[in-house]
């Protein structure tokens, strides 16, 4: 769950990380008011969860409230990376003399947080650091201890070493404090990533977070319910996501013709691969742990409503589940609905004889082999189209 910049900056402010003065607005009037209150040249920044807003020309500058309102009307409602711009951050324009990059993220390989810093802040920090890895410092942290005094000192030293002359002599101490504050945010909000890019040094005052990026671990959302709301998605998509999440469903729509209903991420991907290797294309897939009668019945509704599902392939390897339950879920569906697609079933494991008998009565002949079922599904697509 990636927060909007303005939300991240509110969190930063609460944790002693300095940010420019700003106001969030969703209307032309709101933008005008915000610029008037800030009483300075402003930056208008669309609030999206996408990257590279600046490169897309969506960040605008305005000297007067009138200009700010004008900028707003030019970018409002436009889309960036498939996301509709619904609001903007109106922020005082800051004159910077140097830009850094500072972040805390997760080193997934070593299962520890990592503090990242670079004296090359700005839009191309990733590319710059790749070209010149000595300009990016990585310090692995203990999750429970966070940034130690020594580590904070080390990072501040690194950043200051590449900055001469130092704009003011407290910078080293301020950077140390900043890294520790950044970790406190990372920890308090169960983050995958907290990033300040650029971190601006100005003529006076503390380093300022000009941009702010916070991504919260999806599995930790229950600890931060106040932050769970639609951002990139529409209200409708968001509601569906939450519903699927509650059910433990992973549903992904694709471009092809074959729907896949399966249990387990690994096997679902393997089926997707098999279909593609054999010249077929998947329409969508639903991965569910609920391979019982009701769970299957409910899952079928999803495919029923998806117009590009031309054939539905169902796979169960029942180690813990039962094939007869799955079969009953399918026959319940066929009793209540007229299936708009042929159904191909691969079934093996617990109670597969019972399941087979139930399905055969309904006119479906299940396959014990995955490869045969996939071949059949592809053949069925050719028959219906």
């Amino acid at each position, binding site marked *: 769950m990636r927060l909007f910049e303005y939300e991240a900056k509110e969190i930063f402010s609460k944790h002693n990380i300095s940010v420019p003065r700003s106001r969030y607005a969703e209307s032309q009037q709101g933008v005008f008011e915000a610029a008037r209150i800030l009483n300075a040249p402003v930056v208008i920044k669309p609030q999206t969860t996408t990257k590279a807003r600046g490169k897309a020309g969506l960040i605008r500058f305005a000297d007067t409230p009138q200009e700010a309102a004008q900028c707003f009307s030019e970018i409002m409602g436009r889309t960036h990376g498939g996301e509709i711009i619904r609001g903007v951050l109106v922020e005082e324009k800051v004159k910077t003399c140097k830009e850094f990059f500072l972040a805390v993220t997760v080193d997934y390989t070593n*299962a520890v947080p990592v503090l990242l810093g670079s004296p090359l802040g700005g839009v191309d920090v990733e590319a710059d650091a790749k070209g010149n890895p000595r300009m990016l410092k990585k310090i692995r942290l203990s999750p429970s201890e966070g940034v130690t005094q020594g580590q904070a000192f080390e990072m501040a030293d690194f950043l200051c070493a590449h900055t001469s002359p130092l704009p003011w002599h407290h910078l080293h101490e301020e950077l140390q404090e900043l890294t520790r504050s950044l970790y406190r945010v990372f920890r308090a909000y169960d983050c995958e990533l907290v990033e300040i890019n650029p971190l601006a040094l100005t003529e006076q005052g503390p380093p300022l977070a000009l941009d702010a990026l916070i991504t919260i671990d999806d599995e930790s959302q229950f600890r931060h319910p106040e932050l769970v709301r639609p951002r990139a998605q529409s209200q409708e998509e968001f509601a569906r996501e939450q519903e699927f999440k509650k059910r433990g469903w992973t549903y992904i729509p*694709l471009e092809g013709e074959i729907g896949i209903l399966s249990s387990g991420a690994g096997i679902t991907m393997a089926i997707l*691969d098999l279909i593609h290797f054999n010249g077929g294309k998947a329409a969508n897939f639903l991965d569910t742990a609920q391979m019982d009668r009701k769970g299957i019945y409910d899952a079928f509704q999803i495919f029923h409503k998806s117009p590009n599902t031309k054939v539905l392939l169902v796979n169960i390897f029942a*180690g813990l589940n039962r094939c007869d339950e799955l079969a009953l879920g399918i026959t319940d569906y066929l009793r209540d609905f007229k299936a708009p697609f042929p159904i191909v079933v691969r079934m093996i494991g617990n109670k597969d004889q019972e399941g087979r008998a139930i399905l055969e009565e309904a006119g479906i002949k299940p396959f014990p082999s995955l490869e045969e079922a996939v071949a059949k599904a592809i053949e069925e697509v050719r028959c219906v189209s």
Partner: protein
Amino acid sequence: MSVLAFNHTTVLIQGITGKTARHHTKNMLAYGTRILAGVRPGSGGEEVEGVPVYDSVQEACRDHRLDASVLFIPAASVKQAALDALRHGIKLLVIHAEHVPLHDAMDIIEEARKREATIIGPNTPGMISPPEKVKLGFVPSAYFKPGPVGVASRSGTLTYELVSRLTAAGLGQSTVIGVGGDRVVGLRFAQALKLFELDPQTLAVLLIGEIGGSMEEEAGELIASGGIQKPVFAYLAGHTAPEGQRVGHAGAIINSASGTTQGKIRILEQAGVSVGRTIAQVVEMMRASLGC
């Protein structure tokens, strides 16, 4: 022999009184696992399938010497339970829970490192050592037979699919480890490979991987450096997975150019690993090579 879990391994079940835990405690006992105790705060003094239940890990450890714990504990509270087990000296933990918060997983793994303990998971069906008649978790044991193949897998259902075919082809298993489908897990492929390398019963290893993360790459580097002499086979799922989306497993996400099956396969093959493009192909490769 096997790795990690043996017939003498003594086992604790945390959260033993839940419906799923009861069911699988029964199955594990029937398979031969030596379950000596269970924990459920407030249920001390009860029994589940003849196993005494304690109010705390501390009390269970007072009465029994426990080597391993299987945690049937929901994601939101698994951290406390795992730390509890680790702090009482239990050296092998199987964490089933899916959706464990990222920071909780990091904290558990950090504590395990300090105490030289092993974490299997989170988000794993567990592990099974057929020659030792022991399973920790809920893999369907009917499809597993004793034999020479060590298996480490990031996916539960894919493990059942592949192992059942190995068994049908006459290739039994020494130990099968579900390392877990999350981005952050305890035991990783490279560590599993080192364990299998030292186990005389294991003659070959099968890695079941998928897109995302770097576990396959680490395994490839270890093998390329000469750290593993036994033949290694691999199957990877997700050749055609959509980019940037989470595909069921939290660990299965491709970000731009990294984490793709193509990249992983290249590194594994350069290290001398035989990689099957399909499930049927890798099973056939193993059958041909291991001579059944």
